[in-house]
């Protein structure tokens, strides 16, 4: 585990070189341990891919100056997963996300299918047939960064981003796929839309998905999309 400062109010712990489920498991174990033991002065914890970032309030650590960073590093070290791998977590959650692929709700499905040498329905089936893993939540509130997109569906972002992508839009950007929880500008190829709310500010947690969750997409018809409650 490598510890480095992120500005004067956070410490970044890096647990591996890249994007893989084993590193994510270490990240989640550390993040949970830090969250559970969170003491005075620790204000937030962010697991993402291969890092855990621990935010602290330097004003809550006694001078001498510089002591805060050392104390937080020590605390993070003390939470580090034991050698021999992290303790087994509760079984990961599997969340099914219904998606109406193509048509007006997924205007770029054709582009993605054409690059893959497939028909639209086949490309949608390929997308819905894969298992995905949530590596992080970010970009906008509730936006899941998903790993597991089949290589055939990797598609570059649009040359010109759309000024507005509707909430629930399911997109592909390079090797990544994800769902826009909120209407926002976006450069990803939009292949469909889900009626599920991924960001629910009145609930706790507000994000439907969390790092470590498994995700499957299920194709639904436009009629099902419209009647979804």
């Amino acid at each position, binding site marked *: 585990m490598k510890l*480095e*400062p*992120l*500005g*004067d*109010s*956070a410490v*970044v712990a890096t647990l591996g070189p*890249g*994007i893989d489920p084993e590193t994510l498991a270490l990240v989640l174990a550390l*993040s949970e341990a830090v969250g559970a033991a969170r003491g005075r002065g620790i*204000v*937030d*914890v*962010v*697991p*993402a*891919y*291969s*890092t855990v*970032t621990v*935010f602290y309030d*330097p*004003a809550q*650590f006694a*001078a001498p*100056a*510089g*002591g*805060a*960073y050392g104390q937080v590093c020590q605390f993070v070290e003390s939470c580090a997963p034991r050698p021999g791998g992290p303790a087994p977590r509760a079984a990961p959650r599997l969340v099914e996300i219904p998606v109406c692929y193509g048509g007006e709700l997924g205007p770029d499905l054709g582009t993605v299918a054409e690059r893959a040498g497939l028909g639209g329905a086949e490309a949608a089936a390929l997308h819905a047939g894969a298992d995905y893993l949530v590596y*992080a*939540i*970010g*970009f*906008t*509130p*509730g*936006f899941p*960064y998903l790993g597991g997109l089949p290589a055939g569906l990797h598609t570059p972002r649009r040359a010109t981003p759309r000024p507005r992508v509707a909430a629930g839009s399911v997109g592909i950007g390079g090797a990544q796929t994800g769902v826009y929880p*909120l209407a*926002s500008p976006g450069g990803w190829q939009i292949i469909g839309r889900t009626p599920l709310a991924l*960001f629910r*500010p*009145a609930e706790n*947690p*507000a*994000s439907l998905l*969390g*790092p470590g969750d498994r995700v499957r997409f299920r194709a639904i018809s436009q009629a099902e999309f419209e009647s979804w409650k």
Partner: protein
Amino acid sequence: MEIAVIRAGMLTTVQDLGRRGHLSEGVPAGGAADPFALRVANLLVGNPEDSPGLEVTLTGPELEFSQAAWVAVCGARFEGVPAWKPFRVEAGGRLRLGARLQGCRALVSVSGGLEVEPVLGGRGTLASAGIGGFHGRALRAGDVLRTAPSGRAPTGHWSIDERILPRYSAEPSVRVVPGLHAGEFGDALHSGRFAVAAESDRMGIRLRGPKLARPGGGDLVSAAVAPGTVQVPPDGNPIVLMADAQTLGGYPRAAHVISVDQPLLAQLAPGDAVRFVPATLAEAHALIHAREHDLGLLRQGLAEKIRPA
């Protein structure tokens, strides 16, 4: 007490000191872009430091008060209102912020504090998600805000010691600690003058100046970023992240503006410029302790001057 919005100004939002504990859900901390100014504005009218106030951007609003109240305007200076000093608005009177004299964002506190519902533990507006503050959006003419009752009022003649204020300037030198990829950018960040581009907002200040080249290149794995992070997209024009920035970033980080200097960034308007000077983590932390010491003295001093009404 009710406050009717007669004119909203360019971008006026309800802000507090931000949300905590929701970064991992992609919800930024948000809150006042200049938290120092909001803390002082609240203290000056007898409110808790984290009470919600209004963040006014570039052009001021005009507000009508149904009852008398005390007001403080801190941060950016606007014509027609005292700066860093409480003043009274009478029942039926109007608070008008005139032409902008200095800075970009004024934080306006009203005695009692604005009454808005907390969302995800914060009362500030996160406009990108449409949550918090007044219906999740900037104020518009015709809106009516409510304040909580206040039992306190300033007494006597006095002013705060302006030496405790950040050194606001249209061309400040802000102190930075190195970012993870500082070594790859050479000295360009510390050698140049960077102009503030018009498309800057509460998410980030976009800068134009010497390009920051990263010879190694290569993709990075997205990880947490924070307000103050200086990230460098492939075009080489640095972006300093602000209160509403996204919680994760995949661009290399050249540096981080230290906490006590972030108010200087919040007061930069398009056309202003900034220079970056190196600091150490120990200096950054010592400066935070010094700021808290100053605010502690202010709090003590005001305890005698702001009394139960």
